[in-house]
């Protein structure tokens, strides 16, 4: 009992800085032990049993990952995608390398080439002959998406990109243009 400070009747003359109105006396629970303690412990145990049983009634909240996936927000920055025009099927990328310049991780490599008028690859004068993103370096900051003047590159929603080889993580233009097979579920509005 000595250890417990009684703030109401204490002599504060030795500690004038503590006697201000800012000092709040702490509300403590009853002393443990004794018949009252046993009664409280019993009651609290019953409360604990109720809490755990309520979890059974509630059901599991686990997401069974390989079968179920956590839905992502629309703004989630996952694996990149390159885009084509819907009507003509031409690539939007014109090989300007602005994305590579913006990339803080220096993981994008673009080699541009002149379009052949007979067999156009992109809508502009030039197209990206080589477009590679090294995903083992990418930090998914989305600066490439912001830098692109033609919305040719956007961040997709895929997050399953692990592989056995580092070299397999260098995604080429064909891989980035292709639609991903597994679609990641999107979170609905307000979820």
């Amino acid at each position, binding site marked *: 009992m000595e250890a417990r400070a009684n703030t109401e009747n204490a002599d504060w003359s030795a500690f004038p800085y503590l006697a201000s109105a800012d000092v709040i006396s702490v509300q403590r629970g009853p002393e443990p032990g004794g018949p009252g303690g*046993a009664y409280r412990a019993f009651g609290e145990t019953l409360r604990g049993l109720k809490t*755990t*049983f309520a979890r059974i009634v509630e059901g599991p*909240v*686990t997401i069974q990952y390989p079968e179920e996936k956590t839905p992502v927000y629309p703004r989630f920055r996952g694996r990149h995608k390159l885009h084509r025009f819907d009507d003509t099927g031409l690539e939007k990328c014109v090989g300007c390398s602005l994305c590579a310049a913006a990339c803080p991780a220096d993981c994008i490599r673009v080699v541009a080439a002149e379009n052949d008028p007979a067999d156009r690859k992109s809508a502009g004068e030039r197209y990206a002959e080589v477009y590679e993103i090294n995903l083992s370096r990418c930090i998914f900051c989305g600066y490439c998406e912001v830098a692109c003047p033609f919305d040719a590159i956007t961040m997709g929603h895929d997050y399953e990109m692990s592989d056995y080889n580092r070299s397999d993580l260098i995604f080429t233009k064909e891989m980035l243009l292709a639609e991903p097979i597994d679609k990641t579920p999107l979170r609905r509005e307000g979820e």
Partner: protein
Amino acid sequence: MTVPLADVGFAEATWVLIVKSIVIFAVIFTIVPLLTLVERKLLGRFQARYGPNRVGPFGLLQPLADALKLISKEYYTPQNAVPVLWALGPMIVIFSAVAALAILPFGNVKDGVGFYGIDVSIGILYFFAFGSIAFYGLLIGGWASGSKYSFLGAMRSAAQLISYEVSMGLALLGVIMMAGTLSLTGVVEAQDEVWYVVPQIVGFVVFMVAGFAEANRTPFDLPEADAELVAGYQTEYGGMRYGTFALTEYLEMFLISGIAVTFFLGGWHGPGPGWLDPIWVLVKLLALVFFFMWIRATVPRLRYDQLMSLGWKVMLPLATLNVLVTAVLVTVL
């Protein structure tokens, strides 16, 4: 016909005993591995998750996978261990637990066959005898491991045994006085009108608390307190030797629930025709096992001094008082 173990209330042919022991062994050793799965599933549900559900439908083959893993492991003996005693520890533990199963009554005598292993007249003393031998297994196993954690765990289990076995015995003494018999079938028959949980509620509570300690279950799992002692007496064990200890823990839980059902919850008494008797015992027993698991999911482990003061200062006086009051009432009424 002379029968071992003193004077037996009801003697059967030897082949009946052999068949019965095989049946009891088969049934219990199907139920006990399933209990490990049920416990893991239930613990999962108590924590808002699924528990094992990958091996087979609903994870039903998980115990089989666990057993296969444990059996295929190497039998490793630590350098400091005393090999013979080290191997003996788990054997004693499982032997005593299985032996004690023999007296659990699942039903009365029907068509000349009792629904229990044996009905010894010393009844519950048999259970206590083997319960005490089980602790020798823990002690020997823990000491022979040659590891400080095992040693500490073994010491703790010895202290726990002394603290709780006494109150456990006293808690059952009240029932024995009311029933006027030590035989387990006799005790169940005496509960024809009212289950002893009603007049012996104090005894029931003390028995259950002591039972938790006896089965090394939370909140009294100090011998294997995984946070402080790694795994207590079983720290150095691996493979099926470890598996034996783990299996025994569930067997012990099953056994104590069975004794509680027999002594306090009316054994095979229940509504319905006579052939439902074993079902009633199992239902009550599994309800108690569920309670064991529920407590494990809820209550944290006690400190060592709390365990001791609870055992000596609360449980023992309560049990003694219960015995005294029962004794007076039994003589007066």
